[in-house]
């Protein structure tokens, strides 16, 4: 008996966006162990990273949406996690992005976030979308700017610290 998990898959020019899977663990754990994870609760142990990976999958079941693992078409490697996120304690539905080591500087976060945002507006029928960006996470802020989002308000996350809530253009503004 094989357990099945009915998540949607998206495709962009260079990426496949699919559900998180066990095969993503090592690269995810490396990311969460690195200084680059400082804005998303890291650096943290492999044990906690495993729980985070399972949490990514469980979020889909509890919320009906979640984040996708980005698979680079040319290499088939997982290069990041991007998608729709709303754990308990978040102020609104979020569009979030984390790129694994070596995957930055290629526009992957922006490319995947555009696809995820279209899915939120066109398939889920959402009317607005936010992104939480930790103070000092300039790379993430630049992605938000490229996506046309603008600063909305301040938010303090109990583990991630002081953050800014950025708001994306709504579905009308993107058509």
């Amino acid at each position: 008996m094989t357990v099945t998990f009915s998540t949607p898959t998206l495709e962009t020019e260079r990426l496949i966006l699919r559900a998180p899977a066990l095969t993503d663990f090592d690269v995810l754990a490396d990311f969460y162990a690195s200084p680059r994870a400082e804005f998303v609760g890291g650096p943290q142990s492999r044990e906690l990273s495993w729980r985070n990976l399972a949490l990514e999958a469980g979020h889909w079941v509890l919320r009906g949406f979640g984040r996708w693992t980005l698979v680079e078409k040319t290499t088939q490697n997982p290069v990041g996690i991007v998608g729709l996120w709303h754990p308990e304690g978040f102020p609104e539905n979020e569009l979030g992005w984390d790129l694994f080591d070596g995957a930055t500087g290629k526009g992957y976060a922006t490319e995947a976030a555009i696809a995820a945002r279209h899915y939120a507006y066109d398939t889920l029928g959402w009317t607005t979308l936010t992104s939480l960006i930790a103070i000092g996470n300039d790379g993430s802020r630049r992605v938000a700017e490229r996506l046309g989002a603008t600063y909305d308000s301040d938010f303090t996350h109990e583990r991630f610290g002081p953050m800014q809530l950025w708001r994306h253009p709504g579905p009308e503004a993107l058509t």
Partner: protein
Amino acid sequence: MITLTNTPTLTTERLTLRAPQPQDAPTFIEFYKTDRAQYVGGPKDDKRGWEFFCTEIGHWVMRGYGMFVVTYQGDDTPLGIVGHWNPKTWPEQEVGWVIFEPAIEGKGIAFEAAKAVIDYTWTTLKWATIVSYIAYPNTRSIALAERLGAVRDEDAETPGTAYVYRHPRPTA
């Protein structure tokens, strides 16, 4: 709706064991807010409890097996969770048990559920070994492990500060 499907259901004399579903979240989160959760990673506030419930469901996605929600037959109220737990970082595959409410204790529910899971593990999943990791000094849990025939293995590696109880493989 995103669902987890094709998960097994076990039945015992009194109980049904099924995969966790979103409607179980409030009971799970309430349990984790109490001191009763002190030996199983708690207490946790609402937010961490919600995340950990996601992890429980996600474990099924990652491994194809996980913790079952235990209910009485014909009544879907969650009584506890009993089943398989195996983060990729753990030394061995575990069978674990949690009963949510004190009022449910003393009825042999955890024993009946754990016995069914262990039988299923040997006969269907065909694991080579089964252990239970029990945080010191969770004496009720130790008593249950011993009642199930498990024996403390002082040489086994642990994922944290816990006793390792090893379940005997049934003789053919």
